[in-house]
């Protein structure tokens, strides 16, 4: 397959960037999208050019490292699929593919397709945990957790922290990411003691990081490779209201 890749090139955080076109005449449908970039990079290296910088690690859809905007869509055209799990067979011979970094106020571009997502870590640091110092835990079976609650906590805990929700949101909101953590921990009995402070602190940190507000456009959940639902945002809002009333 012959593909044309138009890739955002930017030398550093303060440098100007632009789209640059590259031909890949020998793309194989069975390649993953990142392997397509590998092949291009091997060629650029040998030609004395500058290979394209992008984040990636596990290449199996679980670490959350990868992520680019492909033809305007965060993680590309396939639903519930990270960039690394997307394959060239999702495209057609002769296609022109635009590849850009996550764009959002809170995510600065570091180089080419790589951005700074450390704001997401700081949201978790603000209270996205259960305080359980090592060694202090009671016997695991002392607190049964009803299966539906455990399952829903699990569904929310599958968030990989990729930031696609933020990139897809017209407001650059990190609401889906934050709500997944609130819904994971606040629903569990173990998370109950810190339930109110957790939601208030997470929301405060989210705002402080410069993420935008949520206007329920739903673009986040469409882009999310793990299918975190809008319900989680409703849960966050409920928890927030409950905590704010309690605080007064």
């Amino acid at each position, binding site marked *: 397959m012959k593909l044309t890749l138009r890739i955002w090139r930017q030398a550093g955080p303060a440098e100007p960037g632009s789209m640059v076109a590259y031909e890949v005449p020998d793309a194989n449908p069975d390649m993953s999208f990142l*392997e397509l970039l590998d092949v291009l990079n091997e060629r650029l290296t040998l030609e004395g050019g500058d290979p394209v910088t992008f984040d990636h690690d*596990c290449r199996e859809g679980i670490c*959350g490292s990868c992520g680019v905007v492909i033809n305007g869509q965060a993680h590309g055209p396939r639903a519930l699929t990270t960039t690394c799990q997307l*394959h060239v067979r999702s495209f057609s011979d002769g296609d022109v593919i635009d590849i850009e970094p996550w764009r959002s106020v809170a995510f600065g571009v570091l180089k080419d397709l790589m951005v700074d997502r450390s704001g997401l870590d700081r949201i978790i640091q603000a209270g996205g945990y259960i*305080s359980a*110092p090592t060694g202090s835990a009671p016997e695991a079976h002392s607190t049964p957790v009803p299966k539906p609650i455990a399952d829903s906590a699990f569904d929310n805990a599958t968030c990989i922290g990729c930031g696609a929700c933020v990139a897809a949101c017209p407001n650059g909101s990190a609401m889906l990411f934050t709500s997944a953590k609130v819904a994971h921990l606040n629903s569990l009995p173990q998370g109950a003691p810190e339930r109110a402070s957790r939601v208030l602190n997470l929301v405060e940190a989210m705002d402080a990081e410069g993420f935008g507000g949520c206007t329920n456009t739903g673009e986040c959940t469409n882009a999310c490779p793990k299918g975190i639902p809008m319900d989680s945002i409703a849960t966050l809002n409920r928890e927030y209201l409950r905590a704010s009333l309690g605080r007064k």
Partner: protein
Amino acid sequence: MSFYRLGDDIADTTAPDVPIEQRWDKRRFDAKLVNPANRRRHTVIVVGTGLAGGAAGATLAEQGYHVIQFCYQDSPRRAHSIAAQGGINAAKNYRNDGDSVYRLFYDTVKGGDFRSRESNVYRLAQTSTQIIDQCVAQGVPFAREYGGLLDTRSFGGVQVARTFYARGQTGQQLLIGAYQALSRQIDAGGVEMHARTEMLDLIVIDGRARGIVARDLITGEISTYLADAVVLATGGYGNVFYLSTNAKNSNASAIWRAHRRGAYFANPCYTQIHPTCIPRSGDHQSKLTLMSESLRNDGRIWVPKNPGDTRSPDQIPEADRDYYLERIYPGFGNLVPRDIASRAAKNQCDLGRGVGPGGLGVYLDFADAIKRMGEAAVREKYGNLFEMYDRITGEDPYKVPMRIYPAIHYTMGGLWVDYDLQSTIPGCFVVGEANFSDHGANRLGASALMQGLADGYFVLPPMLGNYIASTKLDKVDASHPEVTATVAEATGRLDRLLSIDGERTVDSFHRELGEILWNECGMARTEDGLRKALGRLPELREEFWRSVKVPGSGASLNQSLERANRVSDFLELGELLCVDALHREESCGGHFRVESQTPDGEARRDDDRFAYAAAWEFGGTGGTPVLHREPLEFNYVHLAQRNYA
């Protein structure tokens, strides 16, 4: 010419000489303590944020130490522990099915093919129960039954259901638990976290580990970090084979640089090959993806009887198929242990009966299961795995049999450590997959997560405290000659990589290295093959330093330079891997020497000559490594040959 020298034997002198079930208590009781008020004044470096490092960093900070922690990813949450699927073992015996600490200990020693240290394994089994309690308290959403209690399943050929799991994402959930505990400490100021920062070298002063040299991957800046002790939690070295189920950037540089500075490297040839991975689809392949072993519970493995049969699988009648595992191992059938299943697949492909691109694959067929259980039941059980397979291969396993092939998955070898998890460099501790401690020649499924968390949460912290409390350390600063020399060396190495400007890419060297190792030091190893590899590898290393092309500069973000630096270490490690494999003239666990097999083709150990751990001392680049043997004694589990026929 001899490819190694024999040095003095080595021994673990830290496990107390009391009955095995009392050892860990006694060791902890004898350990010196650091006064809580003083801990803040002690700095500990932790390299790595996977299960082992994340758990260690969080726990040490909770105890009051000042922790400086590193990972190469942009967030500590992305360590490769995140990718573990199956589960984590613990001797809780919630099922009342006869499990116990002793049985988990027994299974692990036997599963390791009698090449692990009994004391360590016993402690691992003892600690396992606490891990589950700890993780549940953190909010890890393990699978539960309708009554609200934890669900377990049996895994990897053991007869009790002791594996706790969170759907197919156990590693992710456990790591998020550790990451959150670590995040809490970062927020509290106990952990100074440096993400996107890669350790380049270990600083050793007066024979003790006192810090690291690290490079900020964004700015390229090289800095030194000094401490009272250094903990390496940098994961396994499976990527020495280029293609493996490890993450793309997993590397051996941290442990290899420590090895060069004096830490012995134990049993590098013990590598685990997982039988059910998705085969490679072409030359562009950059990594391999594991499909959970659980698929073998219902899928049937077969190849066409006739070599070169190119008919599509649905056109091949039963009479022309060979369900070779069921034929050769009627007792266990498709459920034989990993190493046996892997080797059998290779043998079939060597006979020309492999399927798919390059003939490197075998079928894993669910047609019978679908007939027996119905498609809905199969979907319920394996739906997410089938989807993953479909996403990667573009084939629908409900309609066409899956194609699978073995791939490198885990490395049992690693830096040698004593019972305290301290390497041969005092003050340098090693935890998780990076050490060699618990799995002998073969790791059982669901035991790596257990080991990483046991090391990080429970074993390392008291032993590190003991080291700090019992060691008088002089103050050092960045102007110390050893520090400046180590920085100069690390910087010089990067400068050299950048200056070569040759004609081959880093990846092309890495691929060639991987191919040599996979062919000669993979599933089946022979003296001839290993000697051939040992002839070629030094040439490849020299060629690399002569003709690698690394674009860009060291003073900014440069992923080619990061890779080149890692591959330069893999090239050296690859040689030691082959030396170890060549010297061990027996088959055991993941190490199969063709010369040492039973008449029916099974692995044959040689306990008289090889019941020891091989701890290698660095002999210089291209030099002769020195072997130190740690004799292994089996006082509790009696030496016996495995038999799965």
